[in-house]
């Protein structure tokens, strides 16, 4: 079966026999399997021999062996972590030669005579705990020194936050942002009124972008090859129905039906289902006539002859000759 030299990689618990030739692959599967198992047993025996001859340390679970480095190298899963660039303070400290001194968690407070913690609740030298602030010559009479102190503290905190952000931006540029921090763009930039903040495109907008560009083609993007996952472009506007050029055999012409439909719609606008306009007009006229007649009769009844308005005779002879 070839030479007995196997390539053994103990770090991966692997053995490779490069010199094995299958003279003839046995046709029956069982024979093939048997041969493979046999060969496999030899290889595994070789690995085990090498493994058990390594120095082992005793443990309640069993003998533990320290494996050597694997010879077959496998690729990494993620990139190597990049070293963080030094922060502004670190650079300054290095330049000045300032060394970091270990500080205790508890500090003796002279004022109260007790051991207080350095940071946190009820801390030593708290800015808020000062009861009396002596007035200096430079102070104006109307100012509140306590409020001033608060404002100064707020300014210091803001400055520190700004510096921290700058340090993180530097780290991001170097590609070494710490794994738990994310920098997210939030508001509009204050500088440059013309520049609009880069709007985060929504999923729908991105899906429509390709469709919008496709309408520039001659066939309106209908026959463009689509990427996997791309949906068909949305049809903007109404769908129109065009009549066929050549009519088939049927009940009547489709054109006639179409025009009839349109006409009916038009007529329906002027005709009312509930109200018959002509009839209503005649009824109204008749009513009016009757009313007029009634009024005339009443007038005749009420007024005397004297107050009868002069009836102007329309005869030619009545006209006075001047």
């Amino acid at each position, binding site marked *: 079966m070839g030479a007995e030299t196997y390539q053994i990689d103990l770090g991966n618990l*692997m053995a490779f026999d490069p010199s094995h030739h299958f003279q003839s692959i046995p046709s029956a599967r069982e024979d093939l399997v048997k041969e493979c198992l046999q060969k496999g047993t030899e290889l*595994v025996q070789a690995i085990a021999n090498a493994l058990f001859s390594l120095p082992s340390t005793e443990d309640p679970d069993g003998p533990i062996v320290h494996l050597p480095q694997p010879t077959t190298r496998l690729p990494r899963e993620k990139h190597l972590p990049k070293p963080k660039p030094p922060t502004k303070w670190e650079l300054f400290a290095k330049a000045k030669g300032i060394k970091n001194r270990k500080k205790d968690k508890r500090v003796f407070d002279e004022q109260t005579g007790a051991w207080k913690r350095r940071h946190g609740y009820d801390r030593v030298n708290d800015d808020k705990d000062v009861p009396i602030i002596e007035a200096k010559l430079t102070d104006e009479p109307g100012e509140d020194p306590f409020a001033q102190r608060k404002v100064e503290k707020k300014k210091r905190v803001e400055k520190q936050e700004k510096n921290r952000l700058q340090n993180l931006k530097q780290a991001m540029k170097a590609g070494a942002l710490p*794994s738990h921090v994310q920098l997210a763009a939030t508001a509009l930039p204050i500088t440059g009124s013309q520049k609009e903040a880069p709007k985060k495109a929504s999923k729908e907008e991105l899906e429509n972008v390709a469709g919008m560009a496709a309408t520039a083609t001659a066939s309106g993007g209908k026959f463009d090859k689509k990427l996997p996952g791309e949906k068909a472009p949305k049809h903007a506007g109404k769908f129109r129905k065009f009549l066929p050029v050549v009519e088939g055999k049927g009940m009547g012409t489709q054109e006639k039906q179409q025009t009839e439909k349109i006409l009916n719609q038009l007529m329906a606008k002027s005709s009312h289902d509930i109200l018959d306009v002509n009839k209503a007009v005649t009824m109204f006229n008749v009513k009016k006539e009757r009313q007029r007649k009634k009024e005339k009769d009443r007038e005749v009844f009420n007024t005397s002859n004297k107050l009868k308005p002069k009836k102007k005779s329309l005869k030619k002879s009545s006209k006075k000759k001047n």
Partner: protein
Amino acid sequence: MLKIKTPRTHRAQRALEKRAPKLVENGKKTLILHGTKTSNLLNSVLTQIYHLKRDSAVNYTKKNENIRPFESGGETSLEFFSLKTDCSLFVFGSHSKKRPNNLVLGRMYDHHVYDLVEVGVENFRPIESFEYDKKITPRIGSKPFFAFIGEGFESVEELKHLKEVLLDLFGGEVVENLNLGGIDRVFVCTATSSTTILFMHCALRLKRSGTSLPRMELVEVGPSMDLVVRRHSLPNDSLKKEAMKTASDQPKKKIKNVSSDIVQGKIGKIYIPDQQVGNMPLSNDIRGLKRERREAKKNKVNGEDQSKKRKMDPQ
């Protein structure tokens, strides 16, 4: 305007730090999924692979229409899943007339596709079809042995690639120390031709031999199949170089309570807990009580004689 976003809970922070790139990496996780159409055979292959890699694999059951690993645009979904589940290996199964019972074994680097090997599965025998003593079943998570037989693994490009991918896929976690009592399983791969390999999973039995080196016995246990290599894609050289980079020096482990002084040399600090005098349990073998005991024994013996005498009296 940039805002600094940090996780609000410790748990979230730990989860993020687990997924961050490190010098010494965590074990690789595998994502098992399938495409639009799968055959019964392929489904059982995928589930058996999942069982082999129980703790370090994620099994997706829905079908994914838009994944085509070998096409340039068809791997975005895969990369998204890899990012979300933090898996750097994947097994993608699909079945078509042109490529029946197709498995694509792939690796990721930085959640982008690194390399792929497409194999077809033939002559598959599931775990259930093997009969063996259940006591020797290999345990989940045990480090396997590998046996590669055949010159094809060295000479043929595709088989060499497949060998590497199989090592990665079934190799388990990278460990420095191994417990010799936990040796359970072995994967035997034989190159039967220049395109096919016979893949078998066997349990190991260590038998007594005359010497300190045990005799190995292989019992076929797990799934066995013929893998026919169809296509493969290797990474380009620059990407390969970057992925193979290792940190040459080990991270210095800080030893606590040891410091060095110029005058005295190496100094160590020992912290002894306070002695609780009142709560100490008394042991029976205190040397100070030896004489007392001797005397007590002597008295006891005398007392017994007296009692015997007394007994005899009434008689």
